[in-house]
């Protein structure tokens, strides 16, 4: 994955590595250099995108992206602004989020959002896969960003054992051991992985939607992502539970509920019958 953005980040990192100086003064100097570099980059980015604001259809878009732009201008422009620059207080800029983000947000129906909430919810999708692809292409051509590799099955050669280990260390704290999701602070939540496709899981890791941290390809390599997706799709979702109905995999809370609602209730009925008069 070598999008513009990443290359720039790599450059930044290299810039930083050099002045990783020990003395305070030199570190300050390093900070100044970094700040300067950041300013330069920001200026550069501005010069790249600013003309786009003035000269509308420039740089020229490919066919799919043009279709995507048409869709964007109908459905997304209210919140994300012209040319996806973002609208203060309504929606963020989409420059650099990449097709992965579009694929996740629009492909799962989270976007377009019905109203501003703590968190966008998964809804029935408004756009067809083809339209999602076109929208993604448009955003990709506008500002670059991460892209999900081609293909629907992204876990073909995944190693479930390795994936399980990755899942437990990176995912289970929010999505729970069974992938059922969990609560976050103040009404936010990590959604269930049950309806997620390979591509959506991949896109979510790449783009870090909402409050999910980003798991770039340097942190979890594409092979590891395949392992992870294999664990989720096969072990968590396809494999049947060997011990009977799994009670929603909520852990001990539903087990406790079951012992009262099923065990105690059944046995109280039994004792009512045993001690009954007739």
């Amino acid at each position, binding site marked *: 994955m070598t999008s513009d953005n990443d290359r720039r980040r790599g450059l930044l990192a290299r810039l930083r590595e050099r002045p990783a100086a020990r003395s305070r003064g030199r570190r300050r100097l390093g900070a100044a250099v970094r700040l300067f570099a950041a300013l330069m980059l920001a200026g550069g980015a501005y010069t790249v995108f600013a003309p786009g604001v003035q000269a509308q259809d420039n740089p020229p878009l490919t066919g799919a992206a043009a279709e995507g732009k048409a869709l964007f201008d109908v459905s997304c422009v209210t919140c994300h602004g012209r040319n996806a620059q973002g609208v203060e207080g309504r929606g963020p800029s989409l420059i650099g989020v990449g097709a992965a983000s579009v694929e996740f947000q629009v492909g799962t129906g989270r976007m377009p959002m019905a109203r501003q909430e*703590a968190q966008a919810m998964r809804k029935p999708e408004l756009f067809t896969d083809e339209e999602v692809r076109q929208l993604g292409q448009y955003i990709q051509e506008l500002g670059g960003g991460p892209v999900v590799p081609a293909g629907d099955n992204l876990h073909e050669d995944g190693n*479930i*054992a390795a*994936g*399980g*280990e990755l899942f*437990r*260390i990176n995912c*289970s*704290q*929010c*999505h*729970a*051991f*069974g992938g059922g*999701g*969990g*609560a*976050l*602070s*103040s*009404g936010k*939540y*990590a959604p269930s992985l049950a309806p997620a496709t390979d591509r959506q899981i991949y896109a979510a890791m790449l783009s870090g939607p909402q409050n999910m941290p980003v798991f770039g390809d340097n942190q979890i390599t594409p092979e590891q992502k395949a392992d992870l997706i294999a*664990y989720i799709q096969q*072990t*968590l979702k396809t494999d049947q*539970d*060997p*011990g*009977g*109905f*799994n*009670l929603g*995999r*909520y*852990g*001990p*809370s539903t*087990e*406790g*509920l*079951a*012992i*009262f609602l*099923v*065990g*105690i209730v*059944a*046995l*109280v009925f*039994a*004792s*009512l*019958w*045993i*001690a*009954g*008069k*007739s």
Partner: protein
Amino acid sequence: MKRRKIDMAAVPGNAARGVDDRFQVATPLRRLLNKVFPDHWSFLLGEIALFSFVILLLTGVFLTFFYEPAMTEVVYNGSYAPLRGTPMSAAYASSLDISFDVRGGLIMRQMHHWSALLFMAAIVVHMLRVFFTGAFRKPRETNWIIGSLLFWVGFLAGFTGYSLPDDGLSGTGLRIASAIILSIPVIGSWVSAAIFGGEFPGTIIISRFFIAHVLLIPGLLVALISVHLGLVFKQKHTQWPGPGRTNENVVGERMFPRYALKQGGFFMVVFGVVALMSGLFQINPIWLFGPYEAWVVSAASQPDWYVMFLDGSTRLMPAWEINIPIGDGYVIPPLFWPTVVLPGILVALSTLYPFLEARHLKDRKSHNLLQRPRDVPARTAVGAMAVSFYVILTLSGANDVIADKFQISLNAMTWAGRVGLLVVPPLAYYVTYRICLGLQQHDREVLAHGVETGIIRRLPDGRFVEVHQPLSASNGHADGHGELEYVGWVVPKKMNRLGALGPAIRGFFYPIEKPAEAPVSPGHPPVEPRPEREEITSGESRR
């Protein structure tokens, strides 16, 4: 071929004579066979706990044959593919083997776990029965104390057992337990180091928990349960008030044959329900949790239900840290109050309750008759208060699951719990108290005026009144009312419950219309039918 002739019919008699010659059991055995037990469904709740304990012993022994209580690191190579090649403790690997490589091991593990949950649930339900009926009063205070100790020892048994598989979830629980121990002022770090053999998690805790779980705690449980049952035997069971029942007698069935047969059958039913649940519902899927690693956690990490109230109290506790500015400074962390002090208070309050109540009421008499909850509004209301307190804590222990599944803000759940914990119990007290008084009043009303018949009659002066069926024969009052005294037992409130101790329609699940076959009693003449009461009066004096 000629055999020596044996009189088969005489064998049992001779054998019995032989035994009695040697052990003199005839008299005590007769007493045992003859012991009378009162019969009521609520008296069977404690048995559920007893029977699930037996199931726990049976399945537990099976599990020990395959479990390896060691924290040495091994690489899993069993048949569960998603964990193959993962480094883990021997304890976790052997628990996985029980689940996947021992034939029938998983059902045994699930039965053990479900019966543990049932054991604790039955203890709590039984305890509520004893509390609300006043069965803990003199002379049974000791048994009440033993019963509440049984809850706490069972709690320990459950926690140590829950920790043994050394999976991710139980390890998180163990981590919290170590933090709880650490939070004890002054000695915390020493106690923790002594239990874990150094810094958490160490390499010895699983072995120590194992011996506690399979020997020390079950030994204590067996001892306590034996004394508990022995005392029930010695002091004889309490009974509800009712016809012929007094404080000085026990009305019921002799132990043999019917009572014992029912108990045996009930044991099988409890066992069967546990087996069914273990087959139908998966419990504690340790293979999904992974091995315990200090940096791994899952959303919705909860303990088993009977520990959840502690988790809840911990979640609701505000971040109140007490700093003691002496020397380098010392600290009492907020964790200390909800997990050490609160259980301490609960143990003290629950064990001392019989004495507190007796002292408050200046009641020194022995009580063998139970009380209906409505007749003791104060106690019932206190009980409701305690139950609501416990339920709020338990729900708060699962508040993240509730927040997630019902789409409520997690922070709102915490605040609801905090406010609820202060507001709901007093409310429960008040509401329960009023309900008890209302029920009492209605009982007295029915006793005084009779049962509402639903028949509306128009009086000559044009008023409408409902006709009441009095419960006693007229005693000469002008309005035909006979006052009956309340005896602490069910007052019939519907016409079809009149004239019978039980429901007039027989049958449990569906009514049996056919009358019973004519009773023939070898010991007694048939019971004479009650004289029909025909008088019907209006309840117009009812206010």
